[in-house]
């Protein structure tokens, strides 16, 4: 088979999207592990406490590392300070954006919305666009032509993946879109998943973002220093690497066009620092299967369903031992994917025995 024949079209307005709709892959029913309603209800309960604690710690560490970075500016000591600040700003904001976008981080709605807006700005994701984009990602996870958030497309582009460790591709695309959106226009792909009633919000936010960036840039010229941009704007780029490192473990190299999150998502055990920064999104199979379960309950959900899931990865290292060779092979053979081994169907086995 020629490469052209097997090359997929990841655009949301191309033939693969049409094919997904025709074959019933779009908006389909997905496999869900059996969890008793009472237990699931308990797992879904919202709390403010864990997210308030984690947010105070996050904002406190941002303030501390940013202040130390300013005080040591011009010396080598500023490097580790801004490294910490950048990770907290450009990487930890990814999981805050994600959880608050789902509305599950806090029980109190305005808290979710406030942190969502803040995190969106930090990670340079327009709040309305990404709210709808992420809804589609959950409807059609890794369905080619439908999911706008497939970050390791086949065949993968190593250059694009590497430059995105510093948000150079995603950031540049977003800045370009801010100019488009500020005029009230949307791209053809965005129109496919954002209802018209939401379009005005996108224009307003794009203008606000551009206004803030213009203000920070003006301050840099006035101070004759890039320090203001080191605090606002640039950390989205120089601090993005850890978010990309985490997010590549979620789906990269796994099966496309399947209706079972156990086959297209990974659960990876991580240390407590990573889990604080990533807000437990390492339990990614669990999150996709039951998106109403808040981040702080994901470890308990994992325990509840792990017998019906493929073996979790013991560490990021173990996950990357699979991801890197899979992506390398997909460059030569875009049909390749990692096939996850599912546990035996316990209900079927039980009925066979009886």
């Amino acid at each position, binding site marked *: 088979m020629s490469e052209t024949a097997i090359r997929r079209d990841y655009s949301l307005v191309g033939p693969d999207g049409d094919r997904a709709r025709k074959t019933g892959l779009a908006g389909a029913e997905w496999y869900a592990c059996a969890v008793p309603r009472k237990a699931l209800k308990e797992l879904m309960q919202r709390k403010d406490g864990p997210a308030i604690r984690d947010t105070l710690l996050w904002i406190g560490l941002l303030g501390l590392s940013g202040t130390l970075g300013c005080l040591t500016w011009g010396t080598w000591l500023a490097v580790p300070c801004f490294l910490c600040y950048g990770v907290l700003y450009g990487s930890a904001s990814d999981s805050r954006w994600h959880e608050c976008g789902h509305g599950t981080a806090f029980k109190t709605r305005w808290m979710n919305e406030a942190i969502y807006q803040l995190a969106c700005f930090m990670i340079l994701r327009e709040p309305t666009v990404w709210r709808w984009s992420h809804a589609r990602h959950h409807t059609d996870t890794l369905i080619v032509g439908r999911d706008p958030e497939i970050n390791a497309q086949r065949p993968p582009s190593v250059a694009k993946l590497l430059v995105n460790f510093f948000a150079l591709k995603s950031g540049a695309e977003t800045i370009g879109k801010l100019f488009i959106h500020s005029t009230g226009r949307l791209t053809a792909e965005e129109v496919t998943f954002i209802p018209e009633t939401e379009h005005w919000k996108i224009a307003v936010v794009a203008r606000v973002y551009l206004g803030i960036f213009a203000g920070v840039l003006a301050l840099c010229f006035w101070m004759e220093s890039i320090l203001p941009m080191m605090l606002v704007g640039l950390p989205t780029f120089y601090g993005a690497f850890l978010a990309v490192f985490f997010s590549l473990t979620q789906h990269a190299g796994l099966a496309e066009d399947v209706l079972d999150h156990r086959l297209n998502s990974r659960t990876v055990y991580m240390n407590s620092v990573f889990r604080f920064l990533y807000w437990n999104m390492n339990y990614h199979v669990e999150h996709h299967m039951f*998106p*109403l379960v808040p981040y702080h309950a994901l470890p308990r959900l994992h325990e509840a369903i792990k017998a019906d899931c493929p073996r979790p990865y013991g560490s990021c290292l173990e996950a990357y031992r699979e991801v890197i060779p899979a992506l390398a092979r997909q460059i030569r053979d875009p049909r390749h994917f990692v096939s996850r081994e599912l546990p035996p169907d316990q209900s079927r086995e039980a009925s066979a025995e009886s």
Partner: protein
Amino acid sequence: MTDTWIAVCPVDDVEPEDVRRFDHGGRTFAIYRTAAGEVFATDGLCTHEHAHLAEGLVMGDIIECPKHNGRFDFRSGKAQGAPACIDLRTYPTKIENGQILVLSGRVSI
């Protein structure tokens, strides 16, 4: 014309502050019971995308869709914000002899 009340289930089959799915005549409903014991009914599928609300979370008078966290006030059916933008249809309910009944429509006799 006469009202068509359909028996759903014993009231105790729906826990307080919870929701239950009820399928009837090719349609699906979501039946809610509040913490105070009041009973409400809406269409069973989220107006955003095809997801059964009975698998979602009840918080006070709000049902949150299990798929994309769209929220509705199940008393009025009012959508509470993106991605839920279209209101849910609601149906009158009553409790008789410990049974929940839902008024799904009117038929000619």
